[in-house]
């Protein structure tokens, strides 16, 4: 009896201390992110906006892929859904951009709920294949709906988001908008991972030692949780899509093709699926790498960097999978105590 208690105490690290450490890291991170713009030139801020947008989608994807252990190769479609719905609502129906952003998230979430209800029975690789195909369907849909979406030419003149005198044509406004959303969603994701729902999702995650059948036996409504986390990840992607559409003000179907979904999977894997922080690391790494190549390649080889970017992504993905399957986050995991320590709650 006593022996057992001792074992449990050994396994479970002191929660309060690690949670405090984690919260401190979070506050520190938020402070740094909010003060970066002071004294920074426009170029790094533009890059950081990209990192933030990719982080938002990747965080959603980490809930789906890391927490629940599913695989999606189609989340660029939800990113596109947000962007196009925002674009259509504001240009065709003259709805205020902020309202459009929330409506887009609502509509994308509903679409995801519908799709989720249909495909929740699929597992692993089969699910990956079907989401990949659905991404293709989305691409051809927006390419074909020429009257509404401008077809392959895309949509232009999407109105910017605004707050008082600031609009999303202002770089600082974009920076703060994107990174405030990132931090809010990060806090939400971290808490979710540590909540009853998070534990239920981990219980059905075969990659985390769970099992759908076992989870069901324990009273977890597997269907509901799987659909629900799918919807949540779609809403993350939709928010990023809307912000992206109002920020760049031009969208075209190619940005939401299967290759973009592959990029998102790349970020999630290089960053690490085990924590929402992985999304930020992955997005930072890949966007950083992209920017470095865009600077270096023209100077060194005298040509555009597109091809070299693809090759570098492939090499990084392969190296990560072979030598650091847990992603960048797993490096930090060795140093910092885990936060996932609340099995004793409830």
């Amino acid at each position, binding site marked *: 009896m006593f022996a057992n208690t001792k074992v449990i105490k050994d396994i479970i690290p002191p929660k309060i201390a690690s949670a405090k450490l984690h919260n401190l890291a979070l506050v520190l991170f938020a402070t740094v992110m909010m003060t970066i713009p002071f004294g920074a030139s426009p170029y790094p801020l533009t890059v950081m906006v990209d990192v933030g947008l990719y982080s938002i989608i990747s965080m959603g994807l980490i809930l789906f892929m890391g927490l629940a252990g599913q695989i999606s190769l189609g989340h660029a479609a939800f990113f596109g859904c947000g962007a196009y719905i925002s674009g259509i609502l504001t240009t065709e129906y003259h709805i205020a951009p902020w309202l459009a952003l929330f409506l887009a998230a609502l509509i994308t979430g509903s679409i995801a709920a519908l799709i989720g209800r249909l495909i929740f029975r699929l597992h692993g690789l089969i699910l990956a294949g079907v989401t990949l195909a*659905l991404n*293709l369907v989305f691409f051809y849909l927006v390419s074909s709906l020429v009257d509404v979406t401008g077809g392959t030419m895309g949509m232009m003149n999407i109105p910017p988001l605004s707050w008082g005198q600031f609009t999303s044509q202002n770089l600082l406004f974009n920076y703060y908008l994107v990174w405030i959303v990132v931090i809010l969603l990060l806090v939400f994701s971290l808490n979710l991972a540590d909540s009853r729902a998070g534990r239920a999702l981990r219980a059905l995650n075969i990659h985390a030692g769970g099992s759908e059948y076992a989870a069901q036996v324990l009273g977890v409504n597997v269907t509901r949780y799987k659909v629900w986390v799918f919807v949540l990840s779609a809403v993350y992607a939709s928010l990023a899509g809307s912000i992206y559409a109002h920020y760049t003000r031009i969208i075209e179907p190619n940005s939401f093709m299967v290759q973009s979904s592959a990029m998102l999977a790349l970020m999630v894997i290089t960053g690490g699926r085990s924590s929402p922080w992985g999304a930020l690391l992955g997005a930072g790494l890949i966007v950083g790498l992209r920017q470095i190549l865009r600077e270096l390649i023209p100077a060194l080889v005298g040509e555009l960097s597109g091809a070299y970017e693809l090759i570098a992504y492939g090499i990084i993905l392969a190296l990560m*999978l072979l030598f650091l399957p847990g992603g960048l986050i797993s490096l930090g995991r060795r140093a910092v105590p885990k936060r996932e320590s609340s099995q004793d709650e409830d």
Partner: protein
Amino acid sequence: MNSATALQIFFSSLNLGSIYAALGLGLFVVYSVTRVLNLAQGEFIMLGGMLTVNFYQVGIPLFVSIVMAIALTILAGLVLYRFFFYPARRSSGATKVFLTLSFAFIVDGIALRVWGWEFRSLPAFFNTQSFQLWGATIFGQTPWVTGITFLMVTGLFLFFGRTIWGKALRACANEPLGARLVGISIERMTLFAFSLAAGLGAAVGALITPLTMTSYSIGLPLTAKGLLAAFVGGITRAEGVVLGGFVYGMIEAVTAGTVPGGYHNVIAPLILAIIFVARRRGLLATSQEG
């Protein structure tokens, strides 16, 4: 719908069906041995087409170009196996799938660097001109695509049914553990499956280039279509994959012939996805879990 249109749709569905069947079979051979979806299958098709165009444009005769393209693509398949798949042979299925994706990134990048982003085409084989058949217009390359793909699919079936390597492959597909127990080397079969998939993909790529053109970015979308075709028919059986391919071809040809605009690309995969979700073990369902 008059009879000429119906005939046109019929020929078109045979043509698309044979392409999707071959696409699905490429995925099937790798899946059957490894239980992994090879996301780089479309890249083999892209490589086959692009390499053929490349050799043809420097003056090498078309059929020699095709043979060289197939040989080089098989080499790429071996690279995928040896440097991506083999080092991760003890990893999870998801890791292996993402490794094939990393290979696809690298191949796309190299193709973009070497050939640029432009779409490229080839003349129809033997310079066959478009012709009329009972009122339907047939593009010169179509009969070659349909005919040769048909032969390849039939050849594969004879191979699966009649040869020891084919039977070994089927054994791996049906009962991996049992196959190992009777002395089939999974590693050799995997190597073989990757070369077969690459060669098949390259041949399809060379065949369809005069019809659809090719560029560095066609790979992943083609893989997605092939996956749907294979899933619908049931990826665990070659017959299922071929059936799925023809079902996909038929649905796409019918919607392309009846719905204006590019909507056939939306409707056909959507119908396939719905069929698949409704009948998850494939159209040729057996008691075996897929």
